[in-house]
């Protein structure tokens, strides 16, 4: 599976250096959390204020 091959170097790096592996993952996780939080702040401003009514009003006819 080429997909796994492509990722293998990264994994090997993790395996060769066990101590930093966990912190690196941790760092990636917290980077991602910060990134997502930035995004949430950005989209908070456009989200429908009355979610319940908005969801209730989204009624479609069936299609193909």
């Amino acid at each position, binding site marked *: 599976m080429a997909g796994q091959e492509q990722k293998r170097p990264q994994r090997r790096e993790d395996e060769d250096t066990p101590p930093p592996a966990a912190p690196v993952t941790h760092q990636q996780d917290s980077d991602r959390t910060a990134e997502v939080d930035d995004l949430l702040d950005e989209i908070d401003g456009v989200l429908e204020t009355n979610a319940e009514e908005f969801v209730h009003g989204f009624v479609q*006819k069936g299609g193909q």
Partner: protein
Amino acid sequence: MRVRRVMGIETEFGLTRPGDPHASAVHLSGLVVRAYASGAGPGRALQSGAGWDYADETPLRDARGYEMARALADLSQLTDLDDPATANSVLSNGARLYVDHAHPEYSSPEVLTPRQIVVWDRAGEELMLQAVHTLAQGGEQVRLYKNNVDGKGASYGTHENYLVPRQVPFLAIAAGLLPFFVARQVMCGAGRVGIGQFSQEPGFQISQRADYMEASIGLETTLKRPIVNTRDEPHATGEKHRRLHVIVGDANLCDVANLLKMGSTSLVLGLIEAGLAPELELADPVTAIREISHDPSLRHTVELVDGRTMSALDILAVYREAIEAHVGDAADADTREVLDLWDGVTGDLAIDPLRCAGRVDWATKLAVLEGYRRRDGLQWDDPRLAAIDIQWSDIDPARGLAARMRASGRLTNLVTPDEVAAAVINPPEGTRAWFRGQCVSRFTGQVRAASWDSVVFEPATGQRGLRRVQLPEPELGSRADIGALLDSVEGVEDLLAHLVSPEG
């Protein structure tokens, strides 16, 4: 084997008029179609009073693939401007824009590569947005959604079309595709809040369509929907071609997932055509497609008739290996692109699906939803999450979450805004869509109707002599094929005179 193939994609858009849930969807859909046709500018679209050529096909003999004939059909039924359900336009980019059931639908022109699919599918979003803006200028507020489900029982389709040689037995196609379609969703599902056709259970799932698949193989598209659809409507020479009509897929807003959806399927069809499809047979495809959709951890395994159990990624890996063996080192750039994206996405899905945020719709959506769940402590039955799911696919970046993420660079773009803008106007050059689109832009007032395989001209206004050019070969009518002729003719009469004679 290469990924190149005549392909197209159709999207039925969800639509609402804010504050008016009882507005007629058919009426609103008609407004959208006519707003684009009237607002797009000269030469961009046939006015909705022209129409679609529903006349039956006839066999053709001209070696170049064209046949001239006096049109016998009464086209008056297509010109009824008062009936919004007949709103219908053919666009200068070769696409069809019309009302299908109760949704405005954009059917892309026929293209040849997955990358072109992304370009002309995005063009469809762009021109729908133009229609929304045109309506807003006239005081009509309409919102369009590129999704496939309302969470209250209704589903509407995004259909893929692939040209396949007629000689390939349909049952071989169905057998080869079924396990692939059950697994493919992990690369290209749009993600959905709610489990079950009526979202009766709280939760998140990978696919918009999985819960609406009720049969493995069948003809229906609106009820008892099948994973493999048997509609046999080639829109081309039926003895040579089959148009495989795929209804199992979701509408994508991520370029990578959209390209993978079409590209991987074209490659699997290549395997089937070569008789090299992997021998996989699922014990219960309808149950399997739902169970896989319901497990975003991707750990779920499904049973095969031979007793093995495999995850979606296991199944995809078997197809991927078969493709690798068949492609060898001969992959062209378009094929290589699909394979590289396939490997990158499945590799990351295996480690952590959220790594695919920006490339795969469901993973992108899940990352945002999980963010809200963590930050605000929301449960899956919170209406805010359902609202985010709907608002996700609003095509207007003023509100649409995916559109905003694309605008702020959070989605991996495979194509540029300039390419998309050009594709709103111009047809792809490699198929008959080029002839169709060029006729719309060059001879707007004299094109009375068109279809996938015909263009009907009214050379002189008020005269009864309608004349049809038929295009039964999807790869004829390309720019290379007919561009010089189109550039050289004085007008429609001249063009018709040349097309009638092969020596032209």
